[in-house]
């Protein structure tokens, strides 16, 4: 806790201003993000909640530098990532992504996967990187699985290893795109505790996309509810539950009220998204 607060406000403050993204795949303009603004303080856990296909991932891709943005600016710690004249942010290890379907290299062991970043950036020698990877994986409870390939471990372990692979690069921001989507409730609980533990240790800024409202409130400092396509900020709910949080938090009265509040806002958007989908199909 003490470690965490000391880092808050130090690094990883994201400022997203009036960002618009228009896809133009085959002459048909699709507006994925429309004039979306949000401020994320350094060391904050920011949860993005919205209906499927609303453009959350597009926003994440803009921050990570996988896509260009059409309008607006994104700053990281006051530095321009992308904006007018520079539509696409550079891909950099200061913004690490954990992907929806998992992107551990299946031909490398967990240890080799984690050691890849420092080795390729040449900040550590291969031997040092391997050693550090081993340490960090052990800290995440994967010490017995260093030499296993991603296909040989459970999806939960693979996810944990992927987060370690991101963290070894000392990123300012961790971008997570529905990382626990396909997991059963029990594994999810373990994952949440593991992520909270990691967060308390590192204090990295987390930008987390999810559909799971309980997950959003349990993990987040702020929950940003976004509208259906085009993606706009609809409502921000602050979660004033002190850290470190434990699993019992979820049965508290406060938690239940927050859940109701978020649910109301999201449900409205979900209905809109469903109707829009019906119109598109018709």
């Amino acid at each position, binding site marked *: 806790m003490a470690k965490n607060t000391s880092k808050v406000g130090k690094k990883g403050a994201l400022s997203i201003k009036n960002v618009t993204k228009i896809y133009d795949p085959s002459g048909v303009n699709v507006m994925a993000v429309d004039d979306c603004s949000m401020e994320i303080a350094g060391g904050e856990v920011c949860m993005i909640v919205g209906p499927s296909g609303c453009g959350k991932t597009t926003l994440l891709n803009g921050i*990570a530098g996988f896509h260009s943005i059409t309008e607006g600016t994104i700053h990281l710690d006051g530095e321009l990532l992308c904006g007018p004249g520079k539509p696409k942010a550079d891909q950099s290890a200061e913004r*690490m*992504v954990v992907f929806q*379907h998992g*992107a551990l*290299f299946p031909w490398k062991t967990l240890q080799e996967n984690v050691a*890849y970043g420092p080795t*390729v950036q040449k900040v550590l020698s291969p031997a040092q990187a391997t050693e550090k990877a081993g340490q960090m994986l052990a800290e995440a409870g994967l010490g017995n699985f260093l030499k296993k390939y991603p296909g040989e471990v459970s999806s939960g372990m693979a996810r944990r290893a992927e987060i370690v692979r991101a963290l070894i690069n000392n990123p300012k921001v961790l971008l997570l795109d529905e990382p626990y989507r396909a997991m059963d409730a029990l594994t999810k609980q373990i994952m949440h505790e593991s992520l909270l533990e990691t967060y308390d240790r590192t204090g990295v800024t987390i930008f987390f996309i999810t559909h799971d409202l309980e997950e959003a409130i349990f993990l987040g400092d702020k929950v940003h509810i976004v509208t259906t396509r085009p993606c706009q900020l609809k409502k921000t709910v602050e979660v004033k539950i002190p850290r470190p949080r434990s699993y019992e938090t979820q049965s508290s009265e406060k938690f239940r009220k927050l859940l109701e509040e978020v649910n109301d806002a999201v449900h409205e958007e979900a209905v809109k998204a469903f109707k829009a989908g019906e119109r598109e199909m018709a």
Partner: protein
Amino acid sequence: MTNFLQTLFNNTTTRRGVGAIIIFVILWHIGSQLDEWTGYDLLGIGLVPPPGDVFAAFLEVIPLHGYWMSWVASFGRVITGFLVAMVIGIPFGLLLAVNRYFRGVFFPPFEILRPIPPLAWVPASLIFWPTNEMSIAFVTFLGAFFTIVINVLGGARSIDISYLRAAQSMGASQLDLFWKIVLPGTLPSIFTGAAVGMGITWEVVLAAEMISGGGTQGGGWPWLFYLELLYGRFLGTNSCRNDFHWHCRLSIVKRDKKDRLLLHALATFILTRTRTQIKNLKHSEFESPEKSHGNNKIKKEGDKRSAFQKSQQFFSFLARREQVLR
């Protein structure tokens, strides 16, 4: 060893497999002998010699030096064609996958050439290359090349973009991406392509050897072997060997314009042979209807003679052509 055999035969799958093969051989025997036993000829299989005869012929062939030489020769051709196809095909496929401009320039002609069956290349290949060996190796190369390239291209293009993005975020350069992500990500497809390509190579090499007339140093064996079996052993004669030797000598002759004439001769021969066959058919139908319905043995001997005559015809034809060329 006995232990191994015991476990092998305690396995239901193995027993079923062995049983199936035995039943197949028995059916084969019945099918090929039905004619002698009952007088009714089964279509196709009725003409095939019984399994016992085939096995005896196989035993006869095994001690022959040329038989093993033909193995060596075919194996060499397959390996040559296959290795060259791998060495050229893998980088070519990867380049097609990673470079848009390269793909734009080379993919369309590649796709025009790809559907041409490797065997259709045999005549062209005989003309392109100075020796028979090279022509055959070229055809086997083509058999593997297109499969390998398509597999590598498909494999490299279907690599999950998340891998590339993750690696790039971690600071990988373009070169790192290629060696550390694209290449290992494509390896499964490379192996699939190689396995399928190797299979096609073996299919193609025998056909190419048969059509091109084989090659040198006993390497003409498959072709020789097939014809010898077909005209000689199967149908009761075994004396065209001299002609075959003569034929092998012919293939050693260094290639030049003569080969085009030789190809022409081959084509003409096939045409005339087909024509003769049709003529013979009409002949027997009109002139001796009682013969075809009568004693089977007489009919078979007639077939033997005509097949032998045809092979003789072929070689005298080639001999004449050779004299003309000289």
